[in-house]
């Protein structure tokens, strides 16, 4: 079929318009705001334009929060994939006719508000909550502090992002031709060996996709560390929220947010290029 360049261009317009309007323009606005500084009412003044907010953002005071953000995002991504892979594998291989239903069950929690689900975790984890009550019933010593800890944050985030990990993994595993695994077994590979040498490498695109889909929202999540975390679990996202809502220093918040977005974009592009080059070939 002859390539109709006009038609191609026209078909690209909606997608590009969307990207422009809802991504490029807001990003530009954030950048412009970050160049200003806070006025006395919490508004934005542009009499002194400069990159000083970015210099502030790079001060060592913020390193603990950056470290926290990265820690939670990496931990959440790791645990999500580790837990999601067996689930996706099971649904794909043993789901049979119920596959679609099982996938719907995986997505079902999204029909409930995120905040309510996080509150449910608060009820489970707090000192007088479900876990501690059960431990107490067995006579185990004192309430363990579970809420307002790193554990609670990672638990809550992993729980929340698990479906994001399960779906791409499921798709990837499902597309794997079982004949290849059978061939490996025929060639004297053990079950475990077949998994590591055939299944895992061939489902790597799914794993990368799952990692990206979990890491990117995880690094920006401020609701979960806010509700389940404590004084020591501050993340960059929480600082941005504090700057916008409590401290009302929008330019500085915009600078931090912009940095976060840029780092995320760079990371994602790098990850996708790796995906294309190494895996898809």
């Amino acid at each position, binding site marked *: 079929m002859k390539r109709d360049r006009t038609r191609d261009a026209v078909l690209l317009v909606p997608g590009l318009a969307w990207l422009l309007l809802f991504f490029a323009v807001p990003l530009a606005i954030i950048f412009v705001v970050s160049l200003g500084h806070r006025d006395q009412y919490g508004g934005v003044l542009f009499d002194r334009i400069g990159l000083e907010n970015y210099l502030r953002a790079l001060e060592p005071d913020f390193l603990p929060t950056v470290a926290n953000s990265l820690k939670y995002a990496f931990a959440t991504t790791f645990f999500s994939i580790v837990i999601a892979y067996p689930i996706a594998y099971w649904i794909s291989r043993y789901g049979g006719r119920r596959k679609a239903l099982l996938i719907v069950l995986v997505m079902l929690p999204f029909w409930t508000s995120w905040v309510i689900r996080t509150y449910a975790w608060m009820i489970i984890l707090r000192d007088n909550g479900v876990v501690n009550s059960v431990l107490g019933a067995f006579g185990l010593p004192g309430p363990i502090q579970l809420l307002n800890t790193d554990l609670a944050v990672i638990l809550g985030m992993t729980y929340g992002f698990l479906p994001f990990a399960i779906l791409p993994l499921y798709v990837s595993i499902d597309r794997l031709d079982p004949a290849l695994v059978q061939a490996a077994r025929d060639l004297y590979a053990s079950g475990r060996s077949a998994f590591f040498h055939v299944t895992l490498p061939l489902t790597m695109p799914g794993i990368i996709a799952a990692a990206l889909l979990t890491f990117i929202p995880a690094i920006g999540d401020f609701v979960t560390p*806010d509700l389940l975390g404590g004084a020591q679990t501050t993340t960059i996202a929480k600082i941005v*929220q504090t700057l916008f809502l409590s401290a009302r220093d929008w330019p500085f918040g915009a600078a931090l947010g912009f940095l976060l977005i840029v780092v995320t974009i760079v990371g994602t592009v790098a990850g996708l290029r790796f995906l294309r080059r190494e895996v898809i070939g």
Partner: protein
Amino acid sequence: MSQIHRLQPSRRPLSRRTMLRGMAGFGAAAALGPTLAACAAGATPSPSSAGASPSAGASAAASASPTPVPTPESELFVYNWADYIGEETIGAFEDKYGIKVTYSFFSSAEEMSAKISTGNSGFDVTFPTSTYIKGYIEQDFIQPLDLSLIPNAVNLAAEWVDPGYDPGNKYSMPYMWWTTGVAYDTAQIEDELTSWSALWDERWKGKMAMLDDVREVFAAALIRLGYDINTTDDAQLDEALALLQQQKPLLRTYTTDDIGVLSTGDVWVMHAWGADVYQVQEERDTVVYYIPEEGGVRGSDTMVLLANAPHPVAANLFIDFMLDAQIAAANTNYIGYMGPNEAAKEFIDPAILEDPTVNPDSALVAKLQEILDLGEDEVKYTERYTKLRSGA
């Protein structure tokens, strides 16, 4: 090859396209969820009460308002915190004047500020904290009240007339006031606590919390150091920051949900708003509140008339109505906050009047400091607060 294919059970795997389509739908919902939820979960600098205090059944019938009024508009739009008005107040106002009221909520002062800063929010009356008034006047967000339509202003207690933030009550009328101090659970702590230093006590490491509010947190430290809570002296503020940084490892969390955190028992000692403790006591009656001996903070919410309000006459009448003795009392009895209305005291539930957490005596109130808007110097506080929250 063909044999292998025949051995496979016939199945149509979900193609990537169908899967992505489904994911997109759920993904959109999931992605929007946290954002929308986060708006609701945003920081609230002012206390928001969430429970019902025992209603003394104060009648909602208002005493007649004596001024002959010009014809009011037929509608009114009011913007307030949730659970911050008496149960039947709106209904009573509608009955008295035949004005239809649309009553909307905000969950943070910032949210409210953002909305009214557009200049044509469509609202007539809102309830900002007194610290915002000066800024609002200068930015022309609010307009002067028509005091001829507000004869009930005489009901105000003397100390509330002509406040520093709004001389002559030209732009605002006070609504409710509160104090900030320390709450603790007597079931867990045997000592009788009386000082701010309780929040720095190593014995209760991991069982303490502070309010997530820039000025309140610094006020606690500044009072403990003996300084003015509205200081702009960098050395004093740095000292306060150092003190707060010492405290941080002992804290469990910073939050504005003092009611929630004290009610669940996770926290034994907390920096809290007095009137909120009134509601905590319904869940956990061993929690008590005190204003520390070194001093405390008091604040108030006010009623203002927005610039470009579409229904100014109705708005002024509403503010007047809220200052009516019985209506003010009904409000207090329902939400548990104390008002500035002297005449209302006759109708307020005695339990509230005698409750020192909600209504401390005037000698104590005189010791309290009010947080003032420092204009350009606010940034001295916000920078340090950000440092405090982000540091180790």
